[in-house]
């Protein structure tokens, strides 16, 4: 094992060394940095990254700083197999192993963030200014985290202050589109008290990828993030952690309808309060008592500026309260038993809902982490969720890692994931005024349909009332991961094969037809999909100061029923040239929307210790993907015309340290100015300059 650690250090050095050198610290401290490469998310206990039986991506503060990224979406999309993409709703979210944003759980220090738009979590809401590291566990983790952890868990870890004197940094960054990022971060370890405080202001004038149409792709905005944290050692057994976070954003909004311009603001506000008492009963038993509260609001008001006529006024107000208690017992053979129990209250009040909607759930989880043989690690876990609105869920997980020899290790895991039907799928009550269709949440569908029928708006019912009565089931997945890690001297290769099978996926279907010719839609369980593929990550240190890494993901993502229909020759397309109808072949069937078959990256980090500088180049590629079906056969095939072609991004950054305390950084994201009006989250070339002062 000692040899393994030293190998690890060599590889990990790749990430850590440039900053350490540029800060002019003792080179010995790099070893400590390596040993700190521990992650919390995979097991809810501290585990050495390299010893885990699960596929985990760790992004360190050094990587974030050197890359010059400021928001979470930017740094995540530079990782292999993690892409950000806008879906049909127009909102952007993250995709892991081909699984879309609504099935990916986002945590800060282990507690969940809420506030999604059509299932998508907007990662640009989160600044990376005060992050210690980002941990991404790929594949299902519902055995520990419950609902939404099907595709993976992204956990943002903040730093615990450890310097006796007041330390911190202040930075200013300005870039294209007058994008400004200002940070102030300071912290101190003062006797039994540690505290940290962080402020960020981020603003941009936005950009426009469609100058011929009115309005901007991204309108101007500014936002603030405040975060305060305290860590108080009450005695040698009790420690109290508290954290408060506040986010506030205001963005211009506007739309032109029938030649009338409506203007307004789009506002977002988020609160998080996190309180945790750590209790060390004895060296073997630890208990954590945790209380978490969060509230997210989004409002948008659009009105005609002169006469005040209101076009739309929408509100979204979600609150989540979650007390949890968990304990870990360490046995004499160093195996660990972790258990937890919690209660969750989740409430949403929004436009187009018939009143406030609230969920309650209780849960229990247990995990046993053991090394039955020295080279063998086994983790067995399971979680039970009882929910007020849908059937109970049990989510087990098994993960195994075997160290064959000093160079080679194998890991394998299988786990369940689930996602509870969300508020929208249960309580939505929306009629489109322009087109005339209606969408009803599952729980309100029968009552609302009866109301519409009584008003004489229904011409015929397509799905009988009796069929609308069965409860909507949670979406379920089972995920398999099989990996090999090979490490030799300066080379490290990590290969992971994955397969995720989803069932009970919720989508809309027409349940009735209105007299105006439009449909009433509601939600139902029907799709079954799978995503499968492989991921390879390799790092190689050419010299101590020059490190190269490459990553690649191959992905196949299909709807099972549609794949079967294609196989049976039941799906057709029209050749656009001849207008002849022909049967789709398996090779014409592309799979699910927004999935690229290939995703690759190549990164070079170069450290120049004598010049107290470092520089890097990151090349990111994703192959073509389709946005929606254009030829009416309900699936994506090679005759569809909504493909976005393959996209190459090159990002560069260089940092130089001057007078020990100052860092100057220059960089360019999207160096070759690649844009596509259908990729709204990708502006053209973004140049930036940053000055950082550390104290």
């Amino acid at each position, binding site marked *: 094992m000692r040899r393994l650690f030293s190998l690890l250090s060599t590889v990990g050095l790749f990430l850590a060394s440039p900053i350490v050198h540029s800060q002019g610290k003792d080179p010995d401290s790099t070893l400590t940095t390596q040993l700190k490469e521990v992650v919390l998310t995979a097991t809810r206990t501290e585990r050495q990254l390299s010893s885990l039986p699960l596929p985990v991506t760790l992004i360190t503060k050094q990587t974030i700083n050197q890359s010059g990224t400021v928001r979470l979406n930017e740094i995540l999309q530079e990782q292999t197999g993690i892409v950000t993409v806008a879906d049909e709703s127009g909102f952007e979210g993250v995709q892991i192993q081909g699984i879309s944003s609504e099935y990916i759980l986002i945590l800060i220090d282990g507690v969940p963030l809420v506030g999604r738009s059509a299932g998508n979590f907007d990662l640009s809401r989160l600044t990376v200014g005060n992050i210690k590291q980002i941990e991404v566990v790929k594949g299902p983790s519902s055995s520990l985290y419950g609902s939404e952890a099907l595709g993976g868990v992204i956990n943002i870890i903040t730093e615990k202050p450890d310097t006796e004197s007041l330390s911190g940094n202040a930075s200013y960054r300005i870039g294209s589109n007058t994008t400004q990022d200002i940070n102030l971060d300071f912290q101190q370890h003062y006797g039994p008290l540690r505290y940290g405080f962080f402020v960020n202001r981020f603003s941009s004038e936005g950009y426009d990828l469609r100058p011929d149409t009115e309005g901007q792709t991204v309108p101007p905005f500014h936002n603030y993030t405040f975060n305060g944290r305290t860590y108080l050692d009450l005695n040698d057994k009790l420690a109290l952690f508290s954290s408060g976070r506040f986010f506030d954003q205001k963005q211009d909004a506007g739309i032109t309808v029938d030649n009338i311009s409506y203007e307004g603001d789009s506002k977002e506000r988020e609160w998080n309060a996190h309180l945790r008492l750590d209790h060390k009963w004895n060296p073997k038993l630890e208990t954590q008592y945790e209380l978490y509260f969060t509230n997210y609001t989004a409002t948008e008001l659009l009105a005609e500026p002169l006469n005040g006529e209101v076009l739309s006024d929408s509100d979204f107000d979600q609150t989540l309260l979650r007390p949890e208690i968990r304990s870990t017992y360490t046995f004499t053979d160093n195996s660990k038993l972790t258990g937890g129990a919690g209660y969750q209250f989740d409430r949403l009040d929004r436009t187009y809902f018939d009143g406030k909607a609230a969920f309650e759930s209780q849960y229990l989880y247990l995990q046993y982490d053991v090394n039955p043989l020295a080279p063998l690690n086994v983790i067995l876990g399971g979680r039970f969720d009882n929910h007020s609105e849908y059937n109970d869920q049990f989510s087990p997980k098994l993960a195994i890692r075997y160290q064959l020899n000093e160079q080679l290790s194998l890991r394998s895991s299988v786990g369940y994931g689930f996602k509870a039907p969300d508020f929208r799928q249960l309580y939505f009550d929306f009629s489109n005024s322009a087109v*005339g269709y209606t969408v009803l949440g599952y729980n309100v569908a029968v009552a609302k349909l009866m109301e519409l029928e009584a008003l004489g708006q229904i011409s015929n019912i397509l799905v009988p009332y009796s069929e609308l009565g069965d409860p909507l089931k949670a979406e379920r997945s089972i995920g398999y991961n099989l990996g090999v890690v090979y490490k030799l001297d300066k080379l490290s290769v990590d290969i992971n094969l994955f397969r995720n099978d989803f069932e009970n996926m919720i989508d809309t279907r027409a349940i009735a037809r209105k007299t105006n010719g439009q449909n009433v839609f509601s939600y139902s369980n029907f799709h079954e999909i799978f995503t499968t593929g492989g991921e390879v990550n390799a790092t190689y240190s050419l010299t101590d100061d020059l490190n190269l890494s490459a990553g690649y993901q191959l992905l196949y993502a299909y709807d099972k029923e549609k794949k079967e229909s294609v196989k049976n020759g039941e799906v057709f397309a029209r050749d656009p040239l001849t*207008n002849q109808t022909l049967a789709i072949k398996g090779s014409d069937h592309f799979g699910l929307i927004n999935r690229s078959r290939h995703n690759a990256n190549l990164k070079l980090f170069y450290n120049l210790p004598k010049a107290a500088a470092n520089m890097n180049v990151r090349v990111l590629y994703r192959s073509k993907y389709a946005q929606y079906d254009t*030829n009416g056969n309900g699936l994506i095939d090679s005759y569809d015309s909504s493909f976005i072609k393959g996209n190459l991004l090159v990002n560069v950054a260089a940092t130089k340290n001057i007078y020990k305390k100052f860092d100057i950084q220059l960089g360019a994201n999207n160096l070759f100015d690649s844009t596509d009006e259908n990729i709204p989250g990708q502006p053209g070339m973004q140049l930036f300059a940053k000055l950082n002062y550390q104290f």
Partner: protein
Amino acid sequence: MKKTAFLLTTLGLFIASCSSDDDNGPETLPITSEQVINLYAPQTGGQGQGEISGEFTKFDLATGEITTSTTEWDVAFRGTSIAINGGTETGMADEPERNGNAGLTVVTGTFNSVTTVQGLSFAQDSEGSFAIQTASEEGWYTYSGPPNHVISPIPGRVLVVRTRDGHYAKIEILSYYKDSPAEPELTSESRYYTFNYVYNPNEGENSLE
């Protein structure tokens, strides 16, 4: 409306005519395959603008012409709704009276692969529903929803029709937009049907090729 017509002589027709020679019966008429371009089927109301109304655009498969006759029609179009001259009124405003015995069924396949009506059963319009449903994916089209709200005929859905007087025909809808743009947009002019059809002028004969 523009109409292009051409004769189709197929193997089936060849065999059919040979056998009818032997029977010494009445001469078999050739099966016609035609394309109708930009049949305009407007509607009033709908899409949030109140109840749907307006005359259906009626089509006579025997003549291959649009007609205003109240009896000599087989299929009729209004917006995305398709009525047939068989069964009863569904209950919508301004529907044509059903006085024939037309029927309709949807077969999945390429247009050419649908060669006979043998074994098919036909539905008729009835109270509350058309023989072919007017709903995305349920009938002849998919509706893309926001932001483009495009109606796309589902490739491979062949409408097999028994006409008002017992002839058989098949219809393949190609476009719902004027001049059949390859990629219709929100601004494309809609409610213009372009379709292929094959009509067997021999009453009661099953063949569609």
